[in-house]
């Protein structure tokens, strides 16, 4: 039904056109009742903004005429800073981009550097990387699963999320030493092998995550109010999503079957696993929540498979002590918790990268928000922003 409407108009102006038509009709009926618009400033500090995003919305009554996100409150200039850091030092910076799923941030950069150096990490290191990558995803998305309910007024879910996320974070911490900023990847492998007993504990924590997912399925997805507030709200047609470069669950929630873990040629161990990419055809806020919930559950099975199939051997390849990356350019993109994240690394054969372009998922995911928020009602702003799921550090870099 949505696609039919969109076929008639210029897709980028769909909401706008409908709104203008409605306004023009109103104006014709009764000119003297014309109301003056109001500007609503949301943020920079607001629970729905996951950090310091500011949104200036122009309203007419309850309806949003235009909404504009204002970023930069947390811009740290990482692209400039990488130019004065050596390659091993860069991982410390990029850990702080998406701070809830940090381990995943390191991986594409390290892979890009390894590609230029023509180094490949040993199989065991790739398995450990993949397992921690997926655990980072679980920890990240669990926060979303609880947080989305909070945005809609259901406070309970977030407590379950925080409680059960600890089981995963504890495992990440016991392997890497850091709950949020592991800094565990090295060019050529990972820093250490897994500690004794870790595999068993991790498997039991994965069971707890699955229990949490079941709980969310009842508590949130099955909730009538949640459905009423999410279904049909913030619909993103697939072609618009593509033009804005949306990725991750936001794209899969619009029915596009694309996951870089399956589709990209990666040295990580995803290709050895038996798993499924979840999509949902609706493209609304509900479908984005639903896809993420299924992905979290799927990721727990992936972690278990990785731990069962963990190959023996070293966790570091032979790399020089002082790392100089040969001149060249490489671009590596992986399916991070928030969506596709890529690093374009230009090296001139020196200790520091010459230029690093960081392509983050949230930047593109949020760039659709002015289009998406046009014409919606005020309470839906929170729903839509929460369902797009961004981390401010991932927008501002």
């Amino acid at each position, binding site marked *: 039904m949505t696609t039919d409407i969109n076929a008639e108009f210029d*897709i*980028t102006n769909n909401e706008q056109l409908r709104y203008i038509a409605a306004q023009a009709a109103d104006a014709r009926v009764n000119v003297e009742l014309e109301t003056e618009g109001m500007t609503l400033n949301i943020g920079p500090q607001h629970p729905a903004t996951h950090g310091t995003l500011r949104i200036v919305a122009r309203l007419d009554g309850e309806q949003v005429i235009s909404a504009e996100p204002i*970023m*930069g409150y947390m*811009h740290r*200039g990482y*692209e*400039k*800073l990488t*130019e*004065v850091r*050596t390659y091993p030092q860069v991982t410390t910076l990029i850990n702080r981009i998406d701070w809830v799923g940090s381990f995943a941030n390191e991986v594409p950069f390290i892979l890009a550097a390894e*590609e230029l150096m023509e180094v490949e990490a040993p*199989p065991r290191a*790739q398995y450990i990387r993949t397992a921690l990558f997926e655990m980072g995803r679980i920890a990240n998305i669990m926060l979303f699963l609880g947080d989305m309910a909070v945005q809609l007024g259901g406070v309970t879910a977030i407590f379950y999320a925080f409680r059960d996320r600890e089981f995963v974070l504890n495992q990440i911490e016991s392997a890497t030493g850091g709950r949020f900023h592991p800094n565990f990847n090295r060019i050529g492998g990972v820093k250490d092998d897994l500690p004794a007993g870790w595999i068993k504990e991790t498997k039991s924590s994965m069971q707890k995550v699955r229990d949490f997912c079941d709980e969310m399925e009842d508590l949130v997805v099955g909730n009538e109010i949640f459905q009423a507030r999410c279904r049909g709200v913030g619909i993103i047609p697939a*072609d*618009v999503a*593509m*033009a*804005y*470069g949306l990725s991750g669950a936001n794209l899969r929630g619009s029915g*596009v079957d*694309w996951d870089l873990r399956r*589709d*990209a*040629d990666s040295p990580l161990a995803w290709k050895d696993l038996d798993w499924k990419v979840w999509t949902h055809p609706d493209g609304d806020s509900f479908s984005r929540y639903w896809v993420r919930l299924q992905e979290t559950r799927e990721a727990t099975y992936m972690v278990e498979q990785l731990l069962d199939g963990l*190959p023996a051997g070293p966790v570091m390849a032979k790399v020089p002590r*002082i790392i100089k990356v040969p001149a*060249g*350019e*490489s*671009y590596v*993109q992986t399916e991070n918790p928030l969506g*596709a994240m*890529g690093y*374009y690394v*230009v090296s*001139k054969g020196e*200790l520091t990268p010459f*230029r690093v*372009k960081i*392509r983050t998922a949230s*930047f*593109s995911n949020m*760039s*659709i928000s002015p*289009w998406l928020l046009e014409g919606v009602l005020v309470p839906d702003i929170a729903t839509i922003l929460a369902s797009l799921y961004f981390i401010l550090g991932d927008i*501002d870099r």
Partner: protein
Amino acid sequence: MSTTAADDTVVEEAEVTDAVREAIAKAFADELGDAFLDQHITPGRDLWIRVDATAWVQAATFARDKLGMTWLDYISAIDWLPNPYGREMDAEQDWVVHGGGPNDKDAEEMTSGVAGGHTRFQALLRLYSIEEQIGVHIKADLDDSAPAIDTLIPVFAGATWHEREMWEMFGINIIGHPDLRVLYLPTGFEGNPLRKDYPLVSRRVKPWPGIVDVEAMPGADDDADGEATDGEANE
């Protein structure tokens, strides 16, 4: 996992050709004619093409409509000017460990990366086809003194934020952009931070500490401090 033998095979294949990416590069060359300047293929990995700046929008439209590359990855730019500040703000220990010295970079010439180039600024665009699982990097040389490029908003609606970032960070004018305002930087900010000649002020003000960066532990030199204070008090 791959064995040594398998690795060898991969390398041999890679040295021969990457037919799919060759075909895409050829499609661009046929479409753009003289505006297609250069190409570079990392077999099995990636494809770069360099086009004339006048064909920037044409190349993107062609990729979207004819090659199915409907997913906008990112738009950015590269400043190829060698860093004029060199490493003179590095700590002395770093010169010892990593080699080099304060004036290492004086004689360096400007070089461009894969797919070549003749100018300081290059625009960089990546598009991706979700059906074919293949992407392309498109580069375009920009005028050094007044870098400018056409907007891609009519082709990809999501280009707007990327182009605003490119404009503020590199000072590249986006011709036809309807809303060219700062994205990250504060209003009224002067300079374009990602240009190589824009100094990283924090680094200029305070030299990088280098590998030896250990502050004295509290209590480690308490005695010395204590004596000094006592001495002053006595005087």
